[in-house]
């Protein structure tokens, strides 16, 4: 029975177009030794396929395993695949021992009942900044330790702004930003680029404006939500933002900005490395709220989690690996490599000392919220999809912002 079920599962995996079934099969090896004994292989999944075994991250993972007395088998996979792969693996009873997942996925995995509470494992999360930890907290219990956080801000091209006579410091609210875009456009340059694609990325990019207007995710079609969507629509209609924002991922939107034609780009911490290579002077400001101040931005970044195992004696070693990965020294080097903001005040201070450019990002992260925070949990995905659909139908001219968000609210209500 067990065996047939397993083959069957493999078959679904094939049907579901999840290509690398091999990765699921490579789950935890339950025959390996338990806690007391040294040795054994521990499985580790992360969404960083770009890092191979010789990268600093790959080396760190290996080292944390060796320090805990075990061999760690690391598998990196695409972040969009990781959640579904984890669900399939858990169904087959071979989830990895330690898994790094994107923060909004944590609540889905907790809902599936496959993650351990950090308190049950004896992991300490006291030093972690509250709002960063928030995305992994369900019913007041954290289910993972953030490895770092990233978020969104506005990159600007200094040359274009000065040519258009705009002072970046004067941008305090939506009106001053729109006025700046107008000046840029009349100076013959392009205004702003962002990603309004119909995936989670689109929602991630829209949230700073939605929250910046004071919007509440449980009431998508409130006047505040409509104001945020109207702002974006106004930019697209006036030509301040290109129409192809509807197709843009955050990467392609960055490529547009990197051409040097755009004054602003809404993008993330992770582009800092590319920004230095772009070949023009750039600056970073926080995304303004509707009436001034910094808009709350959504937190990005991954959590280290420990999936439920049949053999609970494995947790001791898993805990050692997690503690090692999230120790202050290792956080500093990991977050530097990923250009993430560290989740603890102590490491953030060290980061600023190393690289003063990170300062606006640290204040942006301090003002950030988890998408699944505030008790939303797995309700977030059922709100996010109607929201990105609404953004698409409004910007493409199919519907007015109000009508689009009304439809979204109805769809979200059905959940």
């Amino acid at each position: 029975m067990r065996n047939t079920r397993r083959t069957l599962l493999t078959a679904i995996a094939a049907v579901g177009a999840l290509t690398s079934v091999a990765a699921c099969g490579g789950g935890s090896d339950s025959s390996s030794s338990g806690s007391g004994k040294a040795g054994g292989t521990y499985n580790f999944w992360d969404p960083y396929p770009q890092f191979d075994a010789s990268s600093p991250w790959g080396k760190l993972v290996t080292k944390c395993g060796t320090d805990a007395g075990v061999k760690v088998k690391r598998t990196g996979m695409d972040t969009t695949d990781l959640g579904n792969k984890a669900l399939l693996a858990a169904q087959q009873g071979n989830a990895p021992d330690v898994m790094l997942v994107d923060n909004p996925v944590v609540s889905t995995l907790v809902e599936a009942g496959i993650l351990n509470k950090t308190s049950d494992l004896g992991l300490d999360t006291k030093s972690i900044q509250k709002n960063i930890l928030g995305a992994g907290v369900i019913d007041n219990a954290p289910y993972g330790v953030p490895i770092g956080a990233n978020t969104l801000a506005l990159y600007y091209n200094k040359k274009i702004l000065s040519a258009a006579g705009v002072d970046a410091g004067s941008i305090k609210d939506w009106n001053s930003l729109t006025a700046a875009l107008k000046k840029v456009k009349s100076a013959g340059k392009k205004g702003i680029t962002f990603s309004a694609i119909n995936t989670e990325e689109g929602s991630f990019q829209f949230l700073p404006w939605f929250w910046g207007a004071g919007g509440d995710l449980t009431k998508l079609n409130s006047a505040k939500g409509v104001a945020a969507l109207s702002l974006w629509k106004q930019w697209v209609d006036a030509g301040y933002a290109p129409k192809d924002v509807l197709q843009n991922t955050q990467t392609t939107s960055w490529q547009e900005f990197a051409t040097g034609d755009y004054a602003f780009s809404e993008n993330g911490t992770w582009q800092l490395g590319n920004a230095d290579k772009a070949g023009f002077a750039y600056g970073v400001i926080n995304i303004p709220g509707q009436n001034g101040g910094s808009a709350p931005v959504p937190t990005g970044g991954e959590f280290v989690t420990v999936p439920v195992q049949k053999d609970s004696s494995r947790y001791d070693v898993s805990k050692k690996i997690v503690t090692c990965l999230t120790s202050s020294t290792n956080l500093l080097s990991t977050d530097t490599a990923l250009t993430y903001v560290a989740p603890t005040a102590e490491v953030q201070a060290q980061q600023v000392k190393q690289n003063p450019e990170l300062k606006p990002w640290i204040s942006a992260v301090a003002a950030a919220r988890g998408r699944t925070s505030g008790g939303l949990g797995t309700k977030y995905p059922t709100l996010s999809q109607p929201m990105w659909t609404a953004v698409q139908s409004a910007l493409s001219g199919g519907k007015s912002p109000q009508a689009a968000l009304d439809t979204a609210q109805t769809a979200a209500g059905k959940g």
Partner: protein
Amino acid sequence: MTIARVDRRAQRSPAGSGATGTGQRTNTSALRRRQRRGSRLTALAFIAPLVVYLAAFYLYPLYRNLDLSLRDYTVRSFVQGDAPFSGLDNFRTVLDDPTFGPAMRHTLVFTFASIAFQYAAGLALAVFFNRHFRLAPTLRALFLIPWLLPLIVSASTWSWMFNSESGVINYALHLVGMSPVDWLNSPDWALTSVVIANIWIGIPFNLVILYSGLQNIPGELYEAASLDGAGAWQQFRRITFPLLRPVSAITLLLGLVYTLKVFDLIWIMTKGGPGDASSTLATWSYQLGFGTLLPKFGPGAAVGNILILIALVFGLLYIRVQRRQEA
């Protein structure tokens, strides 16, 4: 088929040698029975690999997909495997969803527009290349390129060409003095854009099959027709088209099944957007099952099953038409 043939051959030899006496006859019939059983086992052994293959790779996934669509799966019950049976609830959810109507309409428009143009263009090209002029083989090979390219390459290329800011198509429109079109970003054009790309991809398939069909039409018919004074158009209408009918039927059916399930092209170019302006049943099914952070396996599988049903209906229709043609 295989079983029958093996049986017959096995029967023949003992029947020939055992026609001498009654005592021997009972003996032979026992022997015959034993041999028949043996040959039946052999026959089963021969078809077993095929049956196992079909069951593992066709029946089981189909059964699982049906099972998924009839149960109320949440992420928790998916992991624990204890999802309650919910009958046709998932199908009801899907049919009531405001996305269903547009997705169904887009699927039909996408499929029939693609097939009509692919077939027309494929047939025109096949007739053209059938004239055996110099360079015809080379040109024909060039027309196969869309078929050889990985779909992700052609789809990405089309999506760059259609880009409203920097795409080459809008640039060409600009050169001839027309205003740019928001190909992929406008709800009025997105579906048309993916249909255009899909037609381009489907032409080689139609060209190859129809061309091979043309090869089977005897040249004498055309000679006789031209002696009788039939022009090119009449030859096409009275000879080529009727004689090509069986080949056309299978081309259209295969094209229909291929086009109904097209997912990757649309997903790469528009992800069903903007809004749901170019979402079809295939993309919607994927969207439900894998496109959000919280997968909805049940409704996703239900949409997939509806798609299979549609393909099945057309398949049966084809078989009926074919029977009538043979009769």
